[in-house]
């Protein structure tokens, strides 16, 4: 007991409350956008929550503040002179990087974000497709109360319509440090709808080390997602043509699994890639296509396979042009054949650039939603 009293007294005497900070003295930052300023400087735009009114009736409105400095940290410190409150980063949702900076290398930004214990590593990374990254933060949030939250929502629920590959910071860092895989970052652009500008996430920017080297569009990034074994679905629309019968058919992917097998022959590495897809027929525009017949279904399956194989091939070739192994074929090789990997590890990007791939897609039409046959219309 006496120790307890001693402890209490000690606690009270020494009570400096160093880290004690009232919640209302913090400016909660939700999003960060980094642009290139004149010379070597950075322009930092931060979306913060601004409270209006007091007590039970107060409301929060998002607003953006901007500052410029030679370093990101300096710019963020400078923001205090604008907000009057210390910025609080633990709830930041997105970090948006302008293309210019991404091409120069994003390590300075990552360094700041990693080093500052406050920013959490599950913040989303985005590359802006617009002129500046700040524009994105200035657009209109549609559902959520702030644009950063809106973006975070979109990225989180991207699986049914995977037009991009959202990466959280830690994921990016992991790919950056792991051998034999290059990171990608989702890209964000703006679309106009009436007077409002809305954000739209489509495609990815792929990297070599920390430098962005190119873009993939929505379709290509879908192919990349399947190659990366992301658990997503995704729609594929194809035109069906058979004995004069044409129809637009929408396949919905409900399961995907890609397997890799490296073959080595005469010091030439060939990567065998097999993607198993489970699809359902989501929409069949022409009622005459009788998908209950095996022959029709196998035709549908081979169409789909052909289409996807071509798409994946295109994607990989595009990546190979820039020597950016975003598929992680290097890490596959490292796992599957450590000895072969040791030989090429030091020179992997170049080896990847000339790597042979053998891509097979094996789609299986599992079900046709709720109907087993096309709807037969009668007069």
């Amino acid at each position, binding site marked *: 007991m006496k120790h307890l009293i001693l402890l209490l007294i000690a606690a009270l005497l020494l009570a400096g409350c160093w880290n004690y900070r009232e919640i*209302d003295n913090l400016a909660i930052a939700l999003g960060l956008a980094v642009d290139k300023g004149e010379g070597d400087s950075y322009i930092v735009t931060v979306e913060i929550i601004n409270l209006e009114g007091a007590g039970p009736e107060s409301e929060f409105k998002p607003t953006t503040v901007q500052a410029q400095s030679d370093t990101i940290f300096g710019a963020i410190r400078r923001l205090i002179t604008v907000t009057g409150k210390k910025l609080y980063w633990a709830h930041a949702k997105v970090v948006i990087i302008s293309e210019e900076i991404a091409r120069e290398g994003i390590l300075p930004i990552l360094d700041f974000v990693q080093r500052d214990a406050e920013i959490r590593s599950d913040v989303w990374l985005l590359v802006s497709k617009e002129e500046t990254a700040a524009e994105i933060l200035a657009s209109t949030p549609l559902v959520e109360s702030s644009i950063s939250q809106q973006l975070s929502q979109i990225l989180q629920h991207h699986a049914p319509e995977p037009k991009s590959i959202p990466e959280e910071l830690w994921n990016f860092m992991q790919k950056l440090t792991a051998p034999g895989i290059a990171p990608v970052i989702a890209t964000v652009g703006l679309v106009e709808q009436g007077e409002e500008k809305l954000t739209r996430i489509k495609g990815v920017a792929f990297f070599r080390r920390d430098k962005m080297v190119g873009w993939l569009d929505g379709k290509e990034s879908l192919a990349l997602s399947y190659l990366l074994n992301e658990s997503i679905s995704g729609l594929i629309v194809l035109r069906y043509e058979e004995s004069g019968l044409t129809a637009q058919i929408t396949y919905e992917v409900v399961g995907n699994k890609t397997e890799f097998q490296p073959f080595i022959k005469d010091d030439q590495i060939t990567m065998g890639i097999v993607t198993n897809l489970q699809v359902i027929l989501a929409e069949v525009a022409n009622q005459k296509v009788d998908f209950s017949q095996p022959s029709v279904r196998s035709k549908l399956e081979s169409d789909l396979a052909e289409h996807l194989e071509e798409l994946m091939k295109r994607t990989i070739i595009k990546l190979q042009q820039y020597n950016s192994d975003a598929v992680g074929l290097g890490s596959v090789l490292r796992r599957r054949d450590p000895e072969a990997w040791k030989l090429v590890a030091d020179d992997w990007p170049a080896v990847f650039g000339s790597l042979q791939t053998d891509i097979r897609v094996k789609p299986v039409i599992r079900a046709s939603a709720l109907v087993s046959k096309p709807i037969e219309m009668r007069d």
Partner: protein
Amino acid sequence: MKLSKSIEKNLEIFQQKIFHDDDVIRYRRFTLGNTQIKCGIIFIDSMIDKDYLGENVISPLTRCKSESIHLREIYPSIENIIAVESLRISKGLEQMIEGILYGDALLLIDGTDLGMILSVKGWEYRSISEPTSESVVRGSREGFTESIIINISLLRRKIQDSRLKFKMQELGRRTKTKIAICYIEDLVSPQILQEVFERINKIDIDGILESGYIEELIKDSPLSPFKTVGHTERPDILAGKILEGRVGILCDGTPFVLTVPFIFMEGFQSNEDYYRNWALASLDRMLRYVGFFITTSTPAIYLSLITYHQEMIPTPLLLSISAAREGIPFPTIFELIVLGLVFEILREGGVRLPSPIGQALSIVGAIVLGDAAVTANFVSAPMIIVIALTGISSFVIPQFLGVVILIRLAFVLFASVLGLYGFVFAVIGLFIHLMSIRSFGIPYMTELSSYKLEDVKDTVIRAPWWWMQRRPKLITKKNRPKRKRIEGK
């Protein structure tokens, strides 16, 4: 001082020397039958049963025949005449005075220096009624009264076993309070019993008005706010504890009976647990542990979350708390302590007031004050929720009602300097304290820090009776089976 052989002188002694100036002492003089022997009875008005005294003592004595009385052995010869169930012949003046003060009547007869103490006690008792401090939905409705004799009878009726023993003692130099130490001979651990006697014999105080005096004088770690002596006003609880091998201490003048040893988890048990379906009772018991956690920790956790670890709050919640706090002039810690204080004042005020006023008070306090404070922007709404939650949860563990306030305060102070880390420190400290105290040689946290299935059966859960075969291990060392094992069950 000694009595003489003359009754007049003896009465004089009582009237002038011992009880002088005391107007409630009655002196009744009469002659013994037709023998002309003078007699006197001394008693205290209102402490004896007057009808009983008249019918069974005075009337037979005045009507008796002289041949039935031997002058030489006058007391033994009238023993058959007096129809009182308990009497004793006494020589010592002290004993006589004590008897009179305890509600007996003293019969003095001319020609002897002896007195006869007749048990004719007959004061007013409060009738046996339902205990208000421990009410139950299911279970016996009788509670202890202020009379130790009645209390003993209540307990005897529950346990009709010749091995149930009562050891009577008197405590308090002036009050001469009767206490009874009761236990079941073959269940109690001799060390505990010996310890109880030793500690009780050490007590030296002039007045014992309630068992609380004894409690504080015999308890272990006297500085600790945790109680290490249990109390109850229900005979069924006492019987249950005694059947587990504990020792009960009954005290005259109070319905509250002490039980030792008292260990931590008893604070989470209720007698009703044993009368109800075991599954529901277990659920309730877990609720009590949760309640204990909530009532001690919520304010500290809330404080550390919103002043140290804002990153742990989900964003939407953070935003709404932030909005609620906007414009509040006081720091959170201040807000917390003041509101907590207000709640305790409301509670204390409610307890001491007659119930209709108490209700009005709580309505005014809870609704009007709380609502007004929020609208006036004095306190934030989440804080009101926290305080209300804390306060309400404290009522599920009535045994620890006082101590949780202290724990809560300590937790809040630690949390205010180091956030959740400080809170964890405080929890560690609390458990060091809990682990280090003992109650009559039994570690306070006995069964809560054990992994044996057998010990868990009556702690976190209340196992069904057919499964609980043994009494608590540390309290009873011998005769442990509670029930015989029934084959096939």
